[in-house]
């Protein structure tokens, strides 16, 4: 069913919701928020998009492969950042001797924390969207066998 009010309001609201989610992600070390909350807001905006417009259109924009790619990329970046500390002679996942720390209070500060926050945001949003699509298909694949 075409619902005109839902479509128009969602087209107006979705950019602001995603902008708010990006703000929470990028200011994870300056104000309350961080990786999990920012990823949850962005994932919720993607679910809202796929609930309002019909599902066939979503398969073009945000395929199942894309959301799984973002989730796996987030996890791999997290593990990879830890090995940088090992290469320089410190422990796994070290921040102080390895990454540039900067001035506390600015946007580009706190080395490892900013990169990990972005990776966690990608991972959590990919997880939420991928769980939603998985539960929606309900276990029947292309051949129709349950």
């Amino acid at each position, binding site marked *: 069913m075409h619902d005109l009010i839902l479509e128009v309001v969602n087209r107006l609201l979705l950019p602001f919701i995603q902008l708010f989610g990006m703000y929470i992600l990028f200011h994870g*070390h300056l104000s309350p928020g*961080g990786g999990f909350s920012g990823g949850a807001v962005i994932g919720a905006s993607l679910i809202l998009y796929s609930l309002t417009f019909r599902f066939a259109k979503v398969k073009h924009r945000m395929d199942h492969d894309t959301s*799984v790619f973002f989730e796996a990329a987030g996890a791999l970046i997290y593990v990879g950042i830890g090995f940088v500390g090992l290469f320089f002679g410190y422990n796994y*996942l070290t921040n102080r001797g390895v990454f540039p*720390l900067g001035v506390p209070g600015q946007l580009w500060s*706190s080395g*490892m924390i900013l990169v990990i926050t972005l990776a966690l945001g990608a991972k959590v949003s990919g997880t939420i969207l991928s769980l939603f699509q*998985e539960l929606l298909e309900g276990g029947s694949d292309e051949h129709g066998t349950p």
Partner: protein
Amino acid sequence: MKKVLPVLVLAAIGVLLVLTVAEMPTFGDSYAPAHRGVMDKYLQDSAVDTGAINTIAAIILDYRAYDTLGEATVLFVAVLAVTAALHGGGHHA
């Protein structure tokens, strides 16, 4: 009897828990046992050690980054488990 038994058991558990709540340290007390320990070190040293002014982000992503890696693994395993439960079995390609 079948309808009354859960209510009785839950009333017993509820009374025990309420009596425990009455014995807990006062809410908001600055000298409670939960605030002695590591809290002062985290509040004073996190701006110098990590460069982040959000103390909770500094705790979970710098002092305890390994635990957050385990948590990301739990999310990953949840997606794997849902995929295996809903698509597993019957795929003999």
